[in-house]
C-alpha cells in the first residue's frame, strides 16, 4: 500500500464484514515522541484467540473467493518496518481493537496520505453504520461522529452528494488546521 490511509480503509472493511454498527478510527500523532498511533476499534462480532493469531498470517482469510487474506499482514508489516508494532485485542460478541504504533522518523515510515478520502469513502459507502474519527496532533484534537451528523440530517442520507461534499470540506478544514498547529 502506498499510503497508511489505504491500509486503514482496507482493515476497516473487516469491521464492516464483522457487522459492527459503530467503528472508531483514531490517528494520534506525537511530534515529540515521533510516533503515530493508529487505532481501529469496532463492536462487531469479534474473534476467538485462535482467529486473532491466524489473521496475522497472510495465508488466512474468511472469504471464499481466495485462499489468502492480506489486510492485517500488510498493515502489520507497515508498522513493524518503522520499528513499531500492531496488536489485536478481540472478544467474541464484543468487538475487535486493532492498534498500531508507527515511528514517524523511520525512513521506512509510509505517509498517512489522503486519510480524509478514506473517511469520506467509509462514511458515504456505509450509511447504515456509525463512524467516529478522531485526529489528534499533540494537544489539538478533532472528532467527527456520524451519529452527530445523522442527528442534524434527519432523513437526509449521508450519501446525498451535497452532504458528502460538505463532510469532505469539513474534514479537510479541521484536519489541516490541526496539522498546521504542530
Amino acid at each position, binding site marked *: 500500500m502506498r499510503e497508511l490511509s*489505504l491500509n486503514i480503509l482496507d482493515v476497516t472493511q473487516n469491521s464492516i464484514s464483522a457487522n459492527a454498527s459503530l467503528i472508531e478510527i483514531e490517528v494520534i500523532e506525537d511530534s515529540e515522541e515521533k510516533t503515530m498511533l493508529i487505532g481501529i476499534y469496532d463492536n462487531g462480532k469479534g474473534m476467538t484467540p485462535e482467529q486473532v493469531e491466524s489473521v496475522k498470517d497472510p495465508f488466512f482469510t474468511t472469504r471464499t473467493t481466495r485462499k489468502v487474506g492480506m489486510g492485517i499482514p*500488510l498493515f502489520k508489516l507497515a508498522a513493524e518496518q518503522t520499528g513499531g508494532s500492531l496488536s489485536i485485542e478481540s472478544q467474541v460478541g464484543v468487538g475487535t481493537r486493532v492498534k498500531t504504533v508507527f515511528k514517524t522518523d523511520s525512513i521506512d515510515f509510509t505517509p498517512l496520505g489522503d486519510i480524509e478520502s478514506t473517511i469520506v469513502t467509509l462514511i458515504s459507502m456505509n450509511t447504515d453504520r456509525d463512524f467516529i474519527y478522531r485526529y489528534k496532533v499533540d494537544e489539538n484534537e478533532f472528532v467527527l461522529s456520524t451519529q452527530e451528523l445523522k442527528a442534524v440530517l434527519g432523513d437526509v442520507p449521508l450519501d446525498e452528494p451535497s452532504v458528502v461534499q460538505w463532510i469532505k470540506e469539513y474534514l479537510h478544514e479541521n484536519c489541516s488546521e490541526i496539522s498546521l498547529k504542530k
Partner: protein
Amino acid sequence: MKSLEELMAIRDKAKANMTDREGSGDGIRVVVGMATCGIAAGARPVLNALVDEVAKRNLKNVTVAQTGCIGMCQFEPIVEVFEKDKEKVTYVKVTAEMIPEIVASHLVNGNPVAEYTVGAIVKD
C-alpha cells in the same frame, strides 16, 4: 470554517430536492471492488471519481457501491456495471481518468467502452 449550522442549511436544501430517487426500479448499479487487492491497485480514487461524476451529472438512476474481491486481482481496479435485462459489463485496470468517459458513454448513452473491458484485455 465549516460548521454544523451550515450542514443544517444543506439538509434543508437537499430535502427540497429529494424527489423520486427510488422512483425507478430499473436503475443502473455500478460496483467497485474494494478488497485489499482493489485498494492496493488504486480503487479508492476510482470510486471517488465515479461518485463525483454521477453526482455532477445528477444521474438519479445510478447507484454506486463497493464490493469485495471480485476474483481477478491482477486486473484491479475493477468496476462492474449491472443493468436490468443486459449482460454485466466488467471494466478492468480502471483509473480515475477513464471514469468521465465510462459515465458519459456507458451510463448516460448506453454504449459500453469496449477498450476498457475485460474482454479487450484477456484474449484467449
